[in-house]
Each structure stands twice: as C-alpha cells, then as structure tokens.
C-alpha cells in the first residue's frame, strides 16, 4: 500500500516538474518564433499594433483561457492538463477525447486511474493530430484539390455538428432530465436571438453553469433521500 503511495507521489512530482519545464520551453519558443521569423523576413513585429490588437480581441481570449483552465483542469488531471494547454484544440477534440476515454474504461474524476487514462488519451490524441497534420502538410499540394473539392465541403464544414451529435447521444442517454434544461434554454435563446450563433463559444459557460446548478440540486436531493432512508 505504502509502495503504491510512494510510487504515485513520485510520479505526480515528476509530472509537475516535466509539465512546468516543458510548458515554459514551449511558451518561450512560441513567443520567440515571431521575432526569429521577423529577423529572417527583415522586419520585427510592430509592438504598438500588437498591443492594440490584443486589447481589441486578446482580452476575450484571456478570460476564456482562465475559464477553460478552471473548468477543464479537474477533468483532465495534472498530466493531461499540462499537455492539453500545450497542444490546444481543447473543446473540439481534447476534452471530448478524454471524456470518452474516461467513460470507455469507467474511471472517476480525481482518481489515480483517471489521471493515467486522461494523460494517455490527451497524449495519443495530440500525437495523432501532429502526425495527420505533418502527413497532410507533406501531401498538401497533391491533396489540396481533393480536400477542397466543392462536393466534400459540406462534410468538413460539419465536423463539429457531427461530433456533438454523437456526444449528445452518449450523454443525454443517461441524463435526459438533466440535459433538457440547458438544451431548452439554449435552444430558446438562439431562436429568439439568432445573431448569437456566431458567439456560441461564449455561451458554453452559462449553459454549463445551468447544467451544473441543476445537477447540484439533484445531487442534494438524492443525498437528503439517502439520509432519510438511513434514519
């Protein structure tokens, strides 16, 4: 028992060390790359224009990043969290991938098993993306006419609906009562204010908050029922 605890503590310590060091290195590379490319092109970034652009659109992403960190880190665990924020594509790929993996093997958030599964899932997903993109970029010239053919465009324009349709079936199935409230409110909101469809990502937080609030009420009710049954 003690050996397992020691093993896990050692693993966690190294995960945080590796996660921090690799994140710092990737961060430095990503911020330095535009300057390095600028020196090759013969013109460095215009910091004034970058500052203005940051205040026009960047602040939205700062808020979004804070929310993503707070919401997704518990779901991903420490190793998965470091990797997911380094490799990106969280909502459209990493989160559904980690959640699907968790459900495939039936682990619970906050357990050692979930930490392992989440890290395996995010690392695999990231490597697949890197590989597909590398192969795609290598074959970009001959592949471009096929991928950009008008007949195939409806397929690629609907990757996200295809993903969320499947996920809805998976999650609504056992949580129909819980799903009806956010789905009803969101559906009504988008019907009454159709211009919001361009800002769907901004409504994920309120929609999630509604679902969590309702889940909490159900959870409390179930807890009370249990207590009553005991007495």
């Amino acid at each position, binding site marked *: 028992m003690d050996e397992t605890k020691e093993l896990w503590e050692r693993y966690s310590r190294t995960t945080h060390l590796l996660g921090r060091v690799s994140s710092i290195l990737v961060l430095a590379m990503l911020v330095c790359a535009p300057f390095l490319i600028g020196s090759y092109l013969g013109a460095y970034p215009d910091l004034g224009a970058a500052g203005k*652009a940051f205040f026009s659109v960047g602040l939205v992403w700062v808020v979004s990043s804070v929310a993503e960190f707070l919401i997704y880190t518990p779901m991903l665990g420490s190793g998965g969290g470091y990797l997911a924020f380094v490799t990106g594509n969280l909502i459209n790929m990493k989160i559904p991938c980690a*959640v699907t993996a968790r459900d495939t093997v039936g682990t619970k958030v906050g*357990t050692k098993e979930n930490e392992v599964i989440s890290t395996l899932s995010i690392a695999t997903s990231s490597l697949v993306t890197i590989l597909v993109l590398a192969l795609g970029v290598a074959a970009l010239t001959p592949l471009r006419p096929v991928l950009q053919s008008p007949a195939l465009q409806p397929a690629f*324009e609907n990757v*996200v*609906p295809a993903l969320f349709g*499947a996920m809805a079936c*998976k999650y609504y199935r056992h949580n129909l009562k819980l799903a009806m409230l956010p789905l009803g409110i969101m559906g009504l909101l988008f019907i*009454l204010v159709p211009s919001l469809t361009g800002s769907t990502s901004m409504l994920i937080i309120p929609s999630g908050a509604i679902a969590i609030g309702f889940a909490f009420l159900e959870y409390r009710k179930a807890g009370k029922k249990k207590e009553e049954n005991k007495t």
Partner: protein
Amino acid sequence: MSIVEKLNSPVLYGICGAIIGFVALVCVVFLVRAYRVGIRLGMDKRKLHRVILSSASFSVLPSIGILLGVIALAGALGIPWPWLRLSVIGALHYETQVAQAAAEQVGMKTLSAAEMTASGFSTIALMMSLCIIWGMVLSIFFNKKYTQKLGGSSGGKTMGFADRAMTAMFIGLVSAYLGSYLGDFVSGGGMLAFRGNWMPLAVAAVSALVMGCLIRLSERKNMEWVESFSIALSMLVSMAAAVLIGLMV
C-alpha cells in the same frame, strides 16, 4: 524572393517543424510515463490499450478538419506557420479570428497574401502566439496547487459531486452547440421562419442516430470493441450524409 515564397521557405519549415517536434517528444514522454505507472498501479493492460486505440481513432477525423484549417490559412500566411499553430496550442475557431484582428491593426483590409508584408506577418504571428498562451501560463503557476486541492494527486478517493459536475458541464457544452443549430434553423432565415441552415442539425441528428445504434451493438456480448470506434464512425457516417445532402439540395 517574394513574401509568399519566404513564408513557405525551408527556414520557416525548419523553425516551425522544430517546435512541433519538441511538443511531439513531450507527448511521447507523458504517454510512456502514464502507461508505465498505470501498469505498476495494477491497471488492466487491455484497458490502457483500448484507451490509446479509441483516442487515436477518435482524433483522426477532427485532425483532418484541423488540416483543412491549415489549408484555409495557408493562402494568406503560408503553410509552415498555420501548420505550427494548429499542431500546437492553437484551435480551429481561434486562429482566423485573431489573425484577422491583428491584420486590421497593421493596416490590412483583409487577411490575404496580396496585402501581406514582412512586418505585418511577424506582428500577426506574435498576436496569434500571445492571445492563446494564458491556459499554459496558468498551468505553469497553478496546475499543481489546483489539482492537489481537488484531490487529484492524493488519489484513491472519488470526488462525489465533482464527477457529476463534469458530466453536467459537458452536457452544457453540447447543449449550447445543439441549441445554436436549432436557433440557426428556426430563426436564421428570419424570426421563427424555419428557413435557416438545417444542415448542422441534420448532421447532428444522423450522428446521434448512428451513435445510438453503435452503443446498442457494443452492449452485446463480445462486441465491446465497437465502442472504441463509435464516435469516429458516427462522425464519418454523418459527414458522408452531409456530402449526400449537399449533392441533393
């Protein structure tokens, strides 16, 4: 050498490829460590293999979608930079928005190769990097404290409501998107006119239907393996349906 030729030059491929290579190495290290510790904790090897297989099959189709994002941005920014952005840290919905905002600030009317300058490109590249680093910055400073507070590294104990909250959060996420497809169809072509874009709704419905059939199938004896491919297969069938609908309409 024109700016477009420079943006597609071996130097840029080298810079971007090196960063992508480093991130791939980090992923391999995390993958191997997690696998080894899983085995030492006594987790079933077959379960770990299933996770790797299902995650890989799950990621192929969205990755092709991301590749299309690279193609979409390649016209204005060259191939190497979008390749880096979308392989590492970036997100499909984010890159174009930030690149466009940065382009406007450097005096470009649209994000296009025709208007691109060396200074414009390096400014856009810096903006694309700066706007989305905050999740990584927060991870560096707070991941350890946050996960420990939540019990992530204490191990063993389940988190009671936290697990239910995560499922609820995901239901909220899915509901926001499905609600937007519904709203787009019902009021996208005029308030309550039911003349808007119905394709996303149809694709989501086909995907859900296929997923339902595959779940049923995976619940049968000796058919559990179907679950590993269920999402990817549902997506593939519904995307094929989108092509068919596109040809018919």
